[in-house]
């Protein structure tokens, strides 16, 4: 049972951190389909730098990488006003191609030793606290309120003296931090970087965010649901059920089917931030 719980946590924690990255960005009105690319880059950077700079250095570099890519997204969408989806997809392709190429050229080849990884409980603690912290910030701080307001109606916020670009810059910095953490956690769990190792987590995190109605705590619970489904899949995969041998491919579909059903069935009231993608 303990190992099952651990599996749930292992499966959900990276998603959860990534969903918080998505929350910071999308609730401020910046569509962020590039979470996948941000996380992948962070994975690569952490794996590449931790051997030289140590565990903390690796995480710091991963966070910096997350921030740099987020700033690219901010510049493209807020300064040059490029379509948010296009910018996000470009980041995903760039990250996949770029890290794949560098890895093939011999970077980030090492398996991280114990000393080159931060302990997993650190990440789990952050993942546990982050949704509550963000929830509190949204309701009890000036930044949280302005963050919500520019995500709802940037032009009205501007007339109240708020600078939406500035708020979104800060929001995307936060996105960078969380995607950096999500990436380093994934690498810490596997110890090595492999090409496209994020395997669609960016999109699942986005789905969890939508499922949670762009609210941090429900989004975190959605990540746990996905983690649970994945853990169940791992437990049951390969075992006969009802006297039948169910192919493992079917089991692998389970978490995605759960997500899909949840998205289809539980989306009651539309909570999409009204200012998503607007200037």
């Amino acid at each position: 049972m303990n190992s099952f719980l651990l599996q749930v946590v292992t499966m959900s924690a990276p998603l959860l951190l990534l969903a918080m990255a998505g929350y910071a960005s999308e609730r401020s009105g910046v569509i962020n389909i590039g979470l996948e690319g941000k996380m992948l880059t962070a994975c690569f950077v952490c794996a590449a730098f931790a051997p030289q700079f140590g565990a903390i250095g690796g995480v710091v570099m991963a966070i910096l990488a997350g921030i740099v890519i987020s700033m690219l997204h901010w510049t493209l969408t807020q300064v040059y006003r490029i379509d948010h989806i296009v910018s996000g997809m470009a980041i995903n392709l760039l990250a996949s191609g770029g890290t794949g190429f560098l890895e093939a050229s011999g970077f980030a080849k090492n398996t991280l030793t114990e000393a080159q990884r931060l302990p997993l409980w650190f990440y789990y603690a952050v993942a546990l606290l982050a949704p509550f912290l963000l929830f509190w910030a949204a309701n009890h701080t000036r930044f949280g309120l302005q963050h919500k307001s520019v995500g709802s109606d940037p032009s009205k916020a501007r007339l109240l003296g708020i600078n939406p670009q500035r708020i979104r810059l800060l929001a995307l910095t936060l996105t960078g931090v969380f995607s950096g953490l999500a990436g380093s956690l994934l690498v810490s769990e596997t110890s090595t970087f492999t090409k496209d190792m994020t395997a669609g987590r960016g999109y699942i995190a986005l789905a969890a965010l939508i499922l949670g109605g762009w609210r941090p705590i429900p989004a975190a619970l959605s990540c746990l649901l996905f983690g649970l489904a994945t853990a169940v899949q791992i437990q049951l995969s390969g075992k006969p059920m009802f006297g039948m041998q169910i192919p493992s491919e079917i089991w692998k579909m389970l978490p995605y089917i759960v997500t899909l059903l949840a998205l289809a069935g539980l989306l009651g009231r539309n909570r999409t931030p009204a200012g998503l993608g607007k200037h």
Partner: protein
Amino acid sequence: MSFAVSMQNISKRFGMVQALDNVSFEVQAGTIHALVGENGAGKTTLIRALYGAMMPDDGSILIGGKTVKFRNSADAIGHRIGMVSQHYGIIGELTNLENLVLGSEGSAILNKVAMQARATELATSMGFEFDWDAESSTLGPAGGQKLEILKLLWRDSQIMILDEPTAMLSPQDSEALFVSLKQLAEKGATVIVVTHRVAEVFQHCKRVTVLRGGIKIADHNVDDVTPNQLAEEIVGGAVMERPQPVSSSKSSVRLKIDQLSVRGEKGDMAVRNLNLEVKMGQLVGIAGVDGNGQRELFHALIGVTRPISGTFSFDGSQWDSESSRTRITEGLRIIPEDRHEEGIIEDWSLLDSAALGLQRLPAFKNLSKGTKKQAPSMAEMFDTKFGRLSDEIASLSGGNQQRFVAGRALSLDAQLILAFQPARGLDLNSTTKVYNEIRRVCQAGACAIVVSFDLDELLDFCDRIVVMAHGELYEPQTEVARDRAAIGRLMVGAG
């Protein structure tokens, strides 16, 4: 004399349009000052410059005698200037308290208890009441306007700019608003009201400035000028003769509504067992305070909402069981309440907008040919000012969007016109023109229902006035059919 606001020789050009030409505008401290003019006269541009939302090309602004330069609204707010814009600055997704404090929260960490205490105190001082934790999307127009006033107080604004504040309010709420504004002016606030309602100027304001075509025409003490004189200055010539309403026609019934009941958004009974017959050629006005079921009635007639009981038919065609598509084909035309939500798609060109909602009519069988043919005449009907037909409709001013939407509704074989506040954002002569055109279409055999919260407008233009209160329809007795006081009593349910 010292002025709270002094704008000197302000000029601003947008592309080909000279929006403001060397306009000077001075406002005495502690007064309510009206800024009047037709659409496109430059009123909104002038106050946007004062609020830092737009940088003028030329000219200077003095606040309390000191020259200032505003790069954005935050600068203006810093000089204790506050603005209530035409479309309201309230964000529906936030709570009332969050909207109140937004942009002026005081500290990085919000002290909600203290905030709520001060909010309640401010509200009480104005005689308002709010559920601070409720989402602002639940506020009606009058509630929104009150929250806007409190926002100005929260920011301790000394100079308050209100852009068409009564455009969506009932007579009673408008009256209450000006009572509040007078109260604030007596405490020393300087209030600038942009309006096109001449009556408001004379009832409530001390001074008035007239703009026309980007040029300042006149500055008066309100006591030194007559309503007619002011109206002529605004229009730049004679005020259009208003048509005489014709007596109720004896022709055949076209629209017949029978025992109609419709639920509102919150599940309440918004329309109750409503009966109404509209005859050929009739222009029926529905008077009433906002939120008494007018919206739901229209939505049911259009086909946006399904009624829970009752029927309605047009020329014998059972519309309640027909699709909106059929209703439109048979001649239903709409000038919707909220053009942003229901009338236009902001980033569509004028060409595409011409066919919006009417796309299945024969005129648009060939879409690109049809729009090229129809869009210019729709725009022309009420002199919509625009750049090119391929421009986004969002590039038009609010009044011009309304003109285009009205032109669209009245262009193609209209048989039943449903108009919700058709004069919203329009000036005197444009309003007259729109009603004239509705009447012309009616004389050709159509009929129309107009909802307006401005009783005077309905009295001026409609053949027959009915009143909606609490979802029920009342018809005044024939001897008081045009009696303002009697209709007013019905409006508040004291008939």
